[in-house]
């Protein structure tokens, strides 16, 4: 089975891209494809997958760090995919908290961002963009050619090696090429011994374990304090 990790900020068009990608993959003969959606508290995407007849599992991290939640469940997701006889399993995660990326070793990593999200957004997104093999830009049909080119340039700044492609999540234009790339990816049965491309946060502090009160006396474990400087007189 092939595994693909797809990440991207909320509302960037991940689900639409995945749906169009699956259509393209099916047109070229790949039959059984499943999706695992990782989210924090709520999600509406499972309905879109079900309507399209795509087997989907959804996991909510709830009170657990979403990145840690992803990593500790991804191997079980792979097992579920293998057991279900999938040719390909796609994981979708809402970029976790931007501090991290769900991208793993040799597993093809896709980051979805949209042209409307601001011209400097690619430079601010962080590891999920920086460590992606494929950067998919959506909503290109409603901005100018120049803005598409500048946006692409800004993606190139943070990720000098990725394939950058434009996919229209509504018509599916561009999904075909993405499918063609992803069909070449490696087959796996488990992620044992593979590594994340970027570390997850190391903090274990009182707030990780459910503390809600504010103040020194409630802070314990690994904490990081900001420095605040006096404002200079003009």
């Amino acid at each position, binding site marked *: 089975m092939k595994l693909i990790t797809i990440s991207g900020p909320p509302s960037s068009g991940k689900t639409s891209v995945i749906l169009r990608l699956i259509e393209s993959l099916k047109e*070229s003969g790949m039959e059984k494809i499943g999706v695992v959606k990782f989210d924090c508290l709520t999600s509406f995407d499972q309905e879109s997958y079900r309507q399209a007849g795509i087997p989907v599992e959804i996991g909510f991290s709830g009170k657990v760090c979403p990145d840690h939640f992803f990593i500790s469940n991804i191997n079980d997701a792979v097992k579920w995919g293998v057991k279900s006889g999938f040719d390909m399993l796609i994981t979708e995660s809402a970029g976790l908290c931007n501090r991290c990326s769900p991208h793993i070793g040799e597993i093809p990593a896709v980051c979805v961002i949209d042209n409307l999200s601001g011209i400097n957004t690619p430079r601010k997104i962080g590891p999920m963009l920086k460590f992606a093999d494929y950067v998919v830009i959506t909503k290109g*049909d409603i*901005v100018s*050619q120049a803005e598409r080119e500048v946006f692409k340039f*800004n993606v190139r700044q943070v990720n*000098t090696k990725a394939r950058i*492609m434009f996919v229209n999540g509504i018509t599916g234009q561009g999904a075909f090429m993405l499918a063609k790339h992803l069909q070449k990816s490696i087959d796996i049965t488990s992620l044992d011994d593979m590594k994340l491309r970027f570390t997850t946060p190391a903090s274990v502090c009182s707030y990780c374990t459910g503390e809600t009160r504010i103040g020194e006396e409630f802070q314990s474990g690994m904490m990081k304090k900001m420095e605040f400087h006096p404002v200079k007189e003009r």
Partner: protein
Amino acid sequence: MHDFYEIAETVSIEEILQKYPIAADFFENMNLGELDQKKPLADALEMADQDWIAELGTDVDDVLEQFADFMVALSSPEDDVFRIGSITIVGGTYKDGSPEDVELTVRTGEVLSIVGPTGSGKSRLLGDIECIAQGDTPTKRKIMIDGVFPDDEMRFELEGQLVAQLSQNMNFVMDLSVREFLLMHSKSRFCEDPEDIVARCFECANELAGEKFTMDVKVTQLSGGQSRALMIADTAFMSSSPIVLIDEIENAGIDRKQAIKILTKNDKIVFMSTHDPLLALSADKRIVIRNGGISKIIETTEEERLSQAVIEKLDETLMNIRNMLRHGELITPDNLQNTGGIDEITL
């Protein structure tokens, strides 16, 4: 090719920034603004607080490697000298599976219009060109570049660079003035003389637009016609893509004929999907799409060009009426007579 590892070790950050202004973006992206600018990057990193560097999720060697990658990728355009002479569309099948018996070669400087009922497959054709289809899209069409079928590697290489697109639905979303916008684009295109190309783009856009605009206006405040004019001028002068796909720009309020002329003058192949007779007849050929396939290719004849003159007259009349409306005049039969070209129409 410069050895950017060596540069990182021997040239001060200050000098690097002077010689390669784009490097400033690297330091911004990496949040490395606090480094000692007087020292070469490698030394500055060694001397910096190592905990701080670790906090940024990186280390000295990694930063140096990323710097070199960044400079190689961004100090020259990735699509350097990207020119093609022709593309050829080789037919696939209609929606019903019957063969589409077509082989059509289009050379740079040529303009083709694509006509056909809504839903007939015009967008599919534009899509096939964009992904350089090799019998692997639903239409089963194949596309040749300069007379050869590209292999997968070449296809991936050309991906996203072959085609520039313009459509009615496109808007500017950047919060920038016209000048800032053009400069930003020229920076991403590695233009040698940005000021010059910006000036030429601006001038050309103003020629195309019905109403003039200045360099200082925000691109988001331009009218529909001004936006379209700026997009066309920008595509003609700055986009490296050799093929331009235009999707219905008829009602854009710009000099459409002039726009097409500017694009072809800059060595582009232009495909435009259109319902506008004036645009369709100004093309060298028009492709007629039915049931998902190319049913006809019509070369624009001298006879048709004669009709074009009549249509232009009609178009002009309509334009005059629009102007009358704008200026608060009454659109009475008498006033219509005065707009010219209307006398043959019974009121």
